[in-house]
């Protein structure tokens, strides 16, 4: 009896786990990027050629030609990668289309970079909520007004 109960339990758990994504329970996890997969190859190639040359296994002319080829390939890869990253990245954080200044609460228009009333930055996320002075990551107090951040 115990065995059958366990089997039923295991079956239910397994089926639930497998069916979960189909029932709308899918977590769209961000895929951790592996940024320099291709460039690494190309540069590793260049590095290898250099070591071969330095240990006397390659003629000067051959070395020059191969390095030329390898670095061009590596640069191309890098460029391609940057393009891809640019495309993939979401639009840089712009102030919302209109809204209220985080310091004084005055309304502003889309595209504004500073509050027209108090001068607080609307672009930087790291702004003292009291006086609007930008601060650096890790700061614990505002350098201007001394309020805790």
């Amino acid at each position, binding site marked *: 009896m115990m*065995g059958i109960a366990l089997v039923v339990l*295991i079956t239910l758990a*397994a089926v639930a786990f497998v069916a979960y*994504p189909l029932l709308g329970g*899918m977590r769209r996890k961000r895929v951790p990027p592996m940024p320099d997969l291709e460039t*690494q190859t190309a540069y590793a190639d260049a590095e290898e050629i250099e070591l071969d040359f330095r240990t006397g296994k390659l*003629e000067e002319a*051959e070395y020059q030609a*191969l390095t030329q080829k390898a670095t061009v390939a590596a640069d191309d890869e890098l460029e391609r990668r940057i393009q891809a990253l640019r495309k993939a990245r979401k639009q840089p954080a712009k102030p919302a289309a209109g809204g209220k200044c985080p310091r004084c609460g005055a309304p502003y228009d889309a595209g504004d970079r500073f509050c027209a009333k108090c001068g607080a930055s609307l672009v930087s996320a790291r702004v003292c909520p009291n006086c609007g002075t930008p601060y650096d990551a890790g700061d614990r107090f505002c350098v201007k007004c001394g309020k805790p951040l």
Partner: protein
Amino acid sequence: MTAVTVGQWTLWIALAIALYGMIASILGARQRVPELVESGRNAVIAIAALAVISSACLLYLLLTRNFQVDYVYQHVSTYLAVPYVISAFYAGQEGSLLLWLLLLTVAGAIAVVRRRDWNEDLLPYVGAVVAGVAAFFLLLLTTLSNPFKLLPTNPGQGIGLNPLLENPGMIYHPPTLFIGYAVYTIPFAYAIAALATGRVGSGWVRGIRLWSLFAWLFLGVGILLGAQWAYVELGWGGYWAWDPVENSSLIPWLVGTAFLHSVMMQERRGMFKRWNIALATLTFALCVFATFVTRSGLIESVHAFGRSPLGYYFLAFLVVVVAVTAALVIWRREELKSKHEMESFLSREFSLLVTVLGMVGVGLAVLLGTLYPTLAESLSGQQLSVGPSFYSRVFTPLGAAVIVIIAICPLLAWGKSSPQRVLRAMLWPGVMAVAFGIALALAGIRPLYAVLGFALCVFVFTSVLVEFGRGWLARKRMTGESYPVAFLRLVNKNHRRYGGYLVHLGVVILAAGVIGSSVYTTDTTISLRPGEAMQVQGYTLKYAEYAIQPTEAKQRFAVTLDVSKGNRSLGRMTAEKNFHWNIEQWVTEVAIRPGLVEDLYVILSGLEQNGLATLSVQTHPMVTWLWIGGGLVLLGTLWAMWPRSEKKRAAGRAE
């Protein structure tokens, strides 16, 4: 009986989920339904979990010695020690298949969980292949080869493990091999995924680098552990007998070696795409073949566990594997064309091609030797056997060729090397090898082909050391670092290169051990009475005492000798030959005194009631070198696998 019910049913559930997972993954990927892909991925994880549960059930039944379960009855007895009860898990066919399934699905689950941007498209197919292979093993486990089969009554006592298997080797050797076999599924799965998606570039090859190194390492270490076990337990004085089961584990290792090398070509040069697909598939197929040979009894061997229809299932599975891959390769033939052309014969590219051809060639030669008796028997009806003489005739030149390749290959550069450069690079190794060879010959070492073999090993050894030395000096000149710092940074900058060289070093030390032990073994049979002494090969053996006594498991016959060489005492050695009740067979326990130069190896052939003992006294030179070489191969592979952190990599590039 709860464990029996649960263990058996989890396999059935896993089979259903595996079939679903395979279909869901492929459909989801082709129709671009992320929910289906995700569900297929969860299915792979679920079958791994179910395999763990089922395995735990079998382990529990073994440990509680529930003899009503046929498998437990066959492989465990009440007086079997606990470590061997655990190893009984894979002592038989059913348990071995379950272990395969367990390792395969766990590796598969890890593979599908490691999601990155470069493999996102590939993973559904990787999961599908893992699920498909798992489904095959589950089919066997639920029908033909059920580890949870019950006997009508509980016999109260089991047959127990074959005493030949009661050796620490039994605990380490089979699981190590099985890890190698099972993990080779992942590179194969990636190869199929690359073909299915058409992304046959360098992405998949990089993705499987760690997997294939890991599998190769375990396979190699498993083979060596098996050799070591045969050496200490079987009592025929050898570590390798060209037994079909031994061969069948060596073949995937050889082809896997070819694969490790051909992968470099695709990464660096975009060449060998077809080779890589073919080698990944071939290695996996050969791993399945090895399981099949061990478990089917189709090929007669001391390891095979009796005939069963299982063989035909394996054969059908292999045919499917090869057919699917071949069809996909034909479909993707345009994408599989090389980006580069071979530029010169004196290049790393060409030497890698030779390496790949060499390793595959050696592998196929072993395969042919293994299959030939069976094929010949089925064609002509006559029983034939291919003995060690075939292998030594074929593999002496092949082995020498492989060592020559190892010697020359790393000296060549990518692209093109000039003959002068190569000759200059060969200068020191050549001088050392010739000097060493002449010294050996003058010292009276014969036969000459062995001297030649040792000289070749010295050549490789020196050339690897020179490689390290040149890199070291070049780095020191470039950076002005102190000697120790320059060396450490050099080997740390390129794990793969220097790990690979270390592996080469290990392989030649191993090769030297093989030459030494196969050419210079001696065997002397002597008869001694208690108290007598005799000189054999420079050793003095003095008969100290003997014992003839019955125990619960066996009738024990043992002779203890005091051994000395010159005036130096080497301690006592006890050789045994025991009659085991349960299998009604004699099992020898060899006495071995290992040494760097040679091992003293004593087998008790016979012992009479009055103490008259017949002993076979053997010396096996340089066997220890096999284990040292193997250790270096292990270290080198670990070094090559060791990841460099992203930060270090970035720093290395900025230099």
